[in-house]
């Protein structure tokens, strides 16, 4: 449902030719009133509902990213290993983790970032950067600062939600797969002299590529189909599922929804990118300094202290209200 009660801060549709308003049939000159060849995007002219390319592309991008990343890893390991490669050979994986993460990052850049950017051209008649909210105004920088504080303050809440999620029983085969995933990340994050590499592969690349996909492309299209709140909720759920970590689905979905909300309130993708980077990059730094604590956080076998959770929830609510007020005043 489109949000009509809350004023949308700086609706970009008012500022550029990316408009939801239907084209008047009388206005079909070679160049429309907006100065662009077509008044409506290719997807609109061909009768695609906005949600269809959004959801289909999330699935296709996920498949392409997984296939490319895993194929690279398998081919690379087969090339460097003298013995037959088995699926769960941890020592081999750990030994070549840097190259596997490099393959993963390249796949993210290609399929989540560049391909999404190119695909955006089918859904807009204006500039891709405007559609994806690569824009800033006077409120962007303050919101980015508030986002950084918010992401730090809400970490104990995320931890607590992860613990709650862990209480849901999962199949053993799935848990074994996730254990391998965590071991790989742990090995990578706690390796010597790789903090910068980890910041790039785990922090920087996903924060840009995933934000382009989810907070840029998917959220914008879902907003057009179903309104802002449905876009935030569905986008967050897709973001949670995308990470194929079912034991962390709830916190991941919540982070996705929060970043979506920030991007919508600020009408800029930059708070989303920075918030995502602070979350992922912060985990990298904490892992490098306190590796045991980080593993507790990742496996969420233990709850953080209750006072910390309560303080975190309180702080998060206050910050959200503050950001809401700030962006509304604008």
């Amino acid at each position, binding site marked *: 449902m489109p949000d009509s009660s809350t004023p949308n801060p700086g609706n970009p549709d008012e500022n550029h030719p990316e408009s939801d308003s239907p084209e008047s049939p009388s206005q079909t000159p070679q160049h429309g009133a907006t100065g662009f060849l077509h008044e409506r995007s290719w*997807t609109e002219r061909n009768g695609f509902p906005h949600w269809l390319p959004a959801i289909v592309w999330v*699935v296709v991008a996920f498949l392409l990213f997984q296939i490319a990343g895993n194929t690279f890893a398998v081919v690379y390991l087969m090339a460097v290993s003298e013995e*037959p490669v088995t699926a769960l050979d941890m020592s081999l994986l750990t030994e070549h983790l840097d190259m596997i993460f490099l393959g993963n990052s390249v796949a993210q850049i290609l399929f989540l970032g560049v391909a999404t950017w190119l695909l955006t051209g089918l859904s807009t008649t204006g500039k891709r950067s405007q559609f994806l909210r690569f824009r800033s105004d006077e409120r962007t920088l303050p919101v980015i600062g508030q986002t950084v504080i918010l992401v730090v303050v809400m970490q104990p809440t995320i931890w607590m939600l992860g613990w709650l999620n862990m209480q849901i029983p999962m199949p053993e085969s799935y848990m074994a797969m996730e254990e391998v995933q965590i071991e790989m990340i742990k090995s990578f994050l706690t390796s010597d002299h790789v903090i910068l590499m980890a910041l790039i592969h785990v922090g920087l690349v996903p924060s840009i590529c995933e934000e382009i996909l989810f907070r840029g492309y998917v959220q914008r299209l879902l907003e057009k189909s179903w309104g802002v709140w449905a876009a935030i909720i569905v986008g967050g759920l897709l973001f949670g599922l995308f990470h194929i970590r079912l034991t962390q689905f709830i916190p991941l979905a919540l982070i996705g929804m929060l970043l979506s909300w920030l991007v919508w309130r600020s009408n800029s993708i930059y708070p989303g990118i920075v918030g995502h980077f602070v979350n992922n990059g912060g985990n990298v730094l904490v892992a490098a300094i306190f590796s045991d604590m980080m593993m507790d956080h990742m496996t969420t076998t233990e709850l953080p202290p209750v006072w910390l959770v309560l303080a975190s929830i309180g702080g998060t609510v206050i910050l959200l209200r503050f950001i809401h007020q700030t962006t509304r005043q604008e």
Partner: protein
Amino acid sequence: MESAEQKSYWNAAGQAGAIFGFIIFLISMIGSYSMIHAEPTGSFFSFYYIAAAIGCLVGIFGGVLGVKFYINEHGPELKIGKGAVIGLFTGLFMALVSVVLSLIWPMIDGSYLENFQNAMIANIEANDMIPDAQKEEAIDGMYAQMQNYFSPGNILQMLGMSAIMYGLLNVISGLLAAKFMGTPPEEEL
């Protein structure tokens, strides 16, 4: 007169999905029983996998049938985007129908799951090209999957994978069917 947006595609997608869901279930059963009654060859191209590939190929035409039903009901005016949506929902219905039938069948033939599991394991064991360690992994995985066949996790996994596969394939086939079988509507005033 109904506008293009008001014309419902649920009937068309539902009917085509039910028909093709049944067809792909049937193909999968033919593959499974062929495998159960055949000698293990150790080949990667067992009856089951060949049937799965055929089922996948046949399943692509669900979206075409969905669009055909829609055209029969509402006339040929439709855009390719609507064809893609019809294809998507046809694929989702197909996935639902085939998974439900796959869950019902072991209740009709009580020995089906056990026989199928034994046939698959025998085929893996007869394969000389896989290293022993990987054979063990594959057999353990197969055994675990069969033991948890009716678990919510396995049902969700089957549904999810079928929905993604048939949904995506039929988005494309529905889109193409609308392109070649339909005619683009006049822009409504």
